[in-house]
């Protein structure tokens, strides 16, 4: 039963920042890039589960706060040579409102 869920407004997240959506599936990190692109990843680094939402966002990547892996926001893939992938979620923005598909 997947549905678009309204989770808030784009301005709830600072540029180059991130907020967490709590869900049964676990925390989901919602990122906003400098270009106002919104991405959603499971808030668990593929390395040792670090909370990606707490990392520094740059370009279209986030650097994990625990051991500095870089994760692509769009695909969840770790930047080579690290290997691993964080689960991605679909997001959609309509007139500033963000919807998330669980």
């Amino acid at each position, binding site marked *: 039963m997947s549905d678009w869920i309204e989770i808030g407004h784009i301005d709830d997240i600072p540029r180059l920042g991130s907020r*967490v959506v709590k869900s049964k599936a676990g925390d989901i990190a919602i990122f906003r890039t400098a270009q106002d692109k919104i991405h959603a990843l499971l808030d668990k680094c593929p390395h040792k589960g670090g909370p990606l939402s707490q990392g*520094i966002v740059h370009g279209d990547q986030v650097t994990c*706060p625990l*051991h*500095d892996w870089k994760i692509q926001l769009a695909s969840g893939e770790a930047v080579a040579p690290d290997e691993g992938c964080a689960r991605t979620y679909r997001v959609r923005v309509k007139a500033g409102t963000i919807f998330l598909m669980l």
Partner: protein
Amino acid sequence: MKEKLVLIGNGMAGIRTLEELLKLAPDLYDITVFGDEPHGNYNRILLSPVLAAEKTIDDIILNDRQWYADNNIMLHTGMRITKINRGQRTITAEDGTETTYDRLIISTGSSPFIIPVPGSELEGVIGFRDIQDVDEMLDAASKYKKAVVIGGGLLGLEAADGLVKQGMDVTVVHLENTLMERQLDSAAGALLKSSLEERGLKFLMEHQTEALLGDKRVEQICFSNGLQIPADLVVMAVGIRPNIELAQSAGIHSERGIVVNDTLQTYDPRIYAVGECAQHRNITYGLVAPLFEQAKVAANQLAQLGISYYKGSITSTKLKVSGIDLFSAGDFQQSDDTEELLYQDPGRGVYKKVVIRNNRIIGSVLYGDTLDGPWYFQLMRDGIDITEMREKLLFGQVSIGDSGHSATDHISAMPDDAEVCGCNGVCKGDIVNAIIDKGLFTLDEVKLHTKAAASCGSCAGVVEQILASTVGSDFTISPAKKPICGCTEYTHDEVRATLVKYELKEIRAVMDFMEWKTPDGCSKCRPALNYYLLCAWPGEYVDDARSRFINERVHANIQKDGTYSVIPQMKGGMTNAAELRAIADIADKYAVPEMKVTGGQRIDLFGLKKEQLPAIWADLNAAGMISGHAYGKSLRTVKSCIGSRWCRFGTQDSVTMAVKLEEMSWGSWTPHKFKMAVSGCPRNCAEATIKDLGVVGIDSGWELHIGGNGGIKVRATDLLCKVQTEAEVLEYAAAFMQLYREEAHYLDRTAPWIERVGLTYIKQCLIEDGDGRKRLAERFLLSQKYAQIDPWRARAEGKEAHEFAPMIEVVD
């Protein structure tokens, strides 16, 4: 219309300049290149291995014709330029064609010096400079037997070694009694000579050539002492002469080389000169490393950035004769004010000499074991004070504990399963495999692929040595300036100077002005920029939370499970029942999973959820406690012993002093964390001598110690000075912190910073220059006005609430 850029000289320095320029400004110019050799651009320094049949010409091509085409560069090979007309801004080629320029780069290199003795024009008498010379040598080797190389320098020996490998009977003639006397002292020169003799080279030392005899081709060589020997090939390798005739004929001021300033411009500002033909601050260079540095600066200027300046280079040398390990850098001749450290083991054929002036390395010569060459070179280039490591210096980097917990004697003797990086559990074998499989060449690549040296970095030296012993190196490119990170070309110092000079006050402004290569930097450069701006513009700069590491952004330490720890300030380690009770109540109220007394003399509450933080802080604030900044690149703690208040040995009230220091300096942001301690007497129970600033009470007042570190690599402090009053302690402390804040690179603790700049420098700034010290202290106190705002209170009152609350909880 694009401006026209013309390059004369299709060699190593000129093309490197274009490569650097294309990286910075790919579309700025219409570029035309003239070269009088018939080839594309090739790696001249590898001509020696080509001659020795270890490489082919194809191996050494750097840029083939396709590269020029791909970059829209018009290339004219086999075309010599004979005239520059500065009035019309044109150049003329030997076939008469003219080309106009807006800017011109001259990089005509140099030519071998041919000794003007009778017979020097005979066939079979050549220099060693280009592909044509190598072709002639190979041709001679296939037809003739006897070769003579005149000149026992780097180039001559490489030529001789190559010719021996081609089967010729080679005699090296040298004027001096030491080979490579410009790079080697006589002891190392003698070692070199005997190992070359073992390989079949013959030497005539202290022989001066008087004439070459022959009909059409050279047949005999005569010396001033009357000796005469047969020679079918004579290679002259006695020196080079910068090619300046073209520039001179156009009236461009030249001496030994074409004179250029720090932006590599000649006296005609439209005309640049780089490479061996250029003379900068009275020096002409004959090695690639400095020329590449020049190329970088010239490109920066041509790209109209105007940020880089060339200040000259220090060079090092390696002989490219396989099987012979030789390294030399800097000055090695003794004089009145130098000292020599010498290590000799003739049995193993090892010789090491390090020359020191004012406790700094100014030169080194290594033979047989050159592993530490790059390290000595680095110490020399950075002007590092070696007093502390002096007794172990000759035993190499591994002996001084730079290799952290994994000290091993010798890289090659190290077993594959020896752990190199203790942080990431990487063994030597892993590193070697990655280097070979992935074709890695630099420390950064190894870090990226193996994680070795990617954490605390203490094993970086060992990793570099493994790299060197695995891939070997044809020549040592001096580890030129180090950019902050991959987002920029510029160093920490350049960025700092630029943002002050041009009054840049936002991260965006710095990135735009300095042409960052990435859209918004990375997790390395953004925190550095944020700090530099904060330090440069106190009260004015608006801190960028998004450029702070999570700990500093939320003012607590992130833990491995994503929870946070909270450490309230406890000045000088002093506490009381009320505070402890309040902490205990808070621990109960929020069900704090674990508590601990830290190594910094205060109490840590572990395992808190981010959402809980503002409420806990509010409660701590209510009990009179504020943030301890245990998470920041900032002042951490001022530890203290109990001192004269209770201790039977105490000479001073260390607790009061510690509290005063902490009150003055809490909240200040620093390049890395900054720790202090105050002990009441030299028994030093507060361990003040491994702190960034340690204060030790003595009968007559206080000793001030600086630059200690108790972390990965323990470093005891240096004594700065003794003072008498509390006011002096505070002033020196403030001044020292400010000097560190203004001059250290981001993420340098005081210990490596002081090792880099030297204690003498710090003393100059803080002791000899009394007014300077007062001004530093004033600047520190000024910036503290804006820094001493308890971040916990602000957040407990609602600042940045979005940080601490989830966006939404989805329940279904």
